[in-house]
């Protein structure tokens, strides 16, 4: 799309005067570069949470070559430091800032209303607020589909879940995993072992060993590294690439996987800032077009029939016809939590703190 530069500049210049007077950050010229700042809590590697954030950033750079300049900061663990750095990035002319983890949400919520020169987006935040948009993935849609594969392929009917922290994102993920498995195999159960860490390879390995010792033959969790998959492979059981595809490392034992694709959020936010139309949005998406959850791989050993079941579920979820948490659903104590014929409201999912029937283990704490 070729626009005459002079005309475009003329039009934009007028608009930018308006924009400047209304205090909105806006690109004044077609060739002005949008500076985007991204802060990572951990280090970017070739798998895991930070990798997928970085992948989205790369997609952004590829979509707007020469028009977007990114500054990336890694390993900012503490909120005090994150708050300072977001502010400093804003004062250095970055107009769009991304927080990449739930831990940034508190700082950004405080900071965003006071910094008018930039717009903020936070991944895994709770709800959008003044000058702060959030985007989060409906992980449970992905885990539900992988649950179908697990339910069909398990021989012992015992599935294992390596739990990182008992937060809602993990809780609804393991619940959906159970529900997906039970949708094809009503006898399946899920055992949970908590490692209390997002990454602790030694513990994750031992956790897999503990689950296998209890009879689990399909292992899932929220792996950020191939360790769980490799440990499962070593023990001769299946591993699920839940929120990540590790088939580069786990060559034989990865049954199926889904990945997180944040690029729609990055791209939409950047486009909106460039056009001056940015407003705080809450983007909570799963499978489907412009979604953040994408089914990725499946093992050649997965039977065609199971694959078809998974794909059918995937399409139904993407089309809004199937909700993984459709009633009747009981919790571990047998109390009904979701009535027959209804689905669970989003807010209940966001704050989920109970485990469904069939999951063995506690929420800890």
């Amino acid at each position, binding site marked *: 799309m070729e626009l005459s530069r002079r005309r475009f500049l003329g039009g934009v210049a007028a608009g930018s005067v308006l924009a400047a007077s209304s205090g909105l950050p806006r690109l004044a010229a077609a060739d002005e570069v949008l500076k985007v700042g991204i802060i990572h809590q*951990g280090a970017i590697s070739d798998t*895991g949470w930070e990798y997928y954030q970085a992948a989205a950033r790369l997609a952004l750079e590829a979509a707007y070559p020469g028009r977007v300049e990114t500054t990336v900061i890694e390993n900012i663990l503490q909120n005090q430091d994150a708050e300072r750095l977001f502010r400093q990035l804003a004062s250095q002319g970055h107009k769009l800032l991304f927080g990449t983890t739930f831990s940034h949400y508190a700082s950004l919520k405080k900071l965003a209303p006071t910094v008018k020169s930039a717009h903020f987006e936070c991944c895994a935040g709770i709800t959008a607020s003044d000058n702060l948009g959030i985007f989060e993935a409906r992980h449970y849609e992905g885990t539900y589909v992988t649950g179908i594969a697990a339910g069909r392929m398990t021989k012992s009917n015992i599935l294992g879940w390596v739990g990182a922290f008992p937060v809602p994102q993990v809780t609804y993920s393991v619940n959906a995993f159970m529900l997906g498995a039970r949708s094809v195999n009503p006898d399946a159960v899920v055992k949970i*072992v*908590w490692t*209390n860490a997002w990454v*602790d*390879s030694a513990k994750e390995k031992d956790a897999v*060993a503990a689950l*296998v010792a209890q009879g689990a033959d399909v292992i899932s969790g929220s792996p950020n590294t191939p360790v769980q998959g490799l440990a499962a492979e070593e023990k001769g059981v299946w591993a699920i690439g839940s929120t990540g595809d590790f088939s580069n490392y786990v060559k034989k034992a990865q049954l199926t996987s889904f990945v997180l694709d944040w690029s729609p959020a990055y791209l939409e936010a950047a486009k909106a800032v460039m056009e001056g139309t940015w407003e705080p949005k809450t983007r909570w998406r799963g499978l489907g077009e412009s979604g953040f959850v994408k089914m990725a791989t499946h093992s050649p050993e997965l039977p065609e029939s199971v694959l078809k079941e998974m794909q059918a579920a995937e399409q139904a979820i993407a089309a809004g016809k199937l909700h993984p948490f459709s009633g009747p659903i009981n919790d571990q104590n047998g109390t009904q939590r979701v009535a027959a014929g209804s689905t669970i409201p989003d807010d209940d999912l966001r704050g989920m703190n109970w485990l469904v029937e069939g999951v063995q283990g506690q929420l800890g704490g």
Partner: protein
Amino acid sequence: MTDAIVSMLVVTLVAGTPLLYAALGELVTERSGVLNLGVEGTMLTGGIAGFIVTFITGNVWLGVGAAMLAGAAMSLLFAIITISLKANQVAAGLALTIFGTGLSSFAGKEYVGRSVVLEPSSLTTALGQVPVVGVLLGKLHPLVWLSWILLAAVCYFVYRTRSGLILRSIGESPSSAYAIGFPVISIRYLATLFGGAMAGIGGAYVSVIYAALWTEGLTAGRGWIAVALVVFATWRPERVLLGAYLFGGVTSMQLFAQGAGFPVPPELMSATPYLATILVLVLISRDAALIRLNVPVSLGKPFHADA
């Protein structure tokens, strides 16, 4: 059922092995009178060195060799500062830990989250064929039972050789040893380097075999537990074995306990190795006589040849 027991044994042995290497090394160092608190930093440096070399070459033993060199290099720095420059050993040990942690993070930047995938060693597969014990040995990397051989060697060296006697005498009374003509400085250097090399192996075991992956701060305090183990063992190598597996076991068992359905909060379970260390330290240390009998008298004090 036997599968579960074998599994638990394997996990305990695996968890205890890095502790065993690091503690044995520190024991020898402390026997010469040098207190090296930098074990954590040394383990991390050895860990990243071993990881990088194994990642690039695909050969575990090259990685272990690199880890030993890295560990020895770190402890050489420490030795220069404390033995030759006579700096305070506690402060220098802390500095080594902080420096080693930073250095390993820096060097490991490109490798965070990467994994090494190793073929099971041919030795291990061969041993797996042995009746009865093969079930266990077939699941363990050679470094595990090499640590047992190391333990035996250290015991033999410390108690049954003349060099071991010299080492101990230097730890007890360096000035007397010096007067007799023993090379106090050289032996302290060697003992410290040995300790560093062993800590390096321990770190590499964690990064290359146990976790098979690199993340920052991978050793999670194991270096400190190793130092505590030396006290726990009252500076006797044979007791280090017991301590290492006890602690290794406590660390891993809490996950098995969870799996079996024990309703204890996971944080409390995770705290058990640290609480156990404190408990053990108290029990061992309260008998002041026991400590006085066993601790190398000159531990932590710089040696002045002309004092």
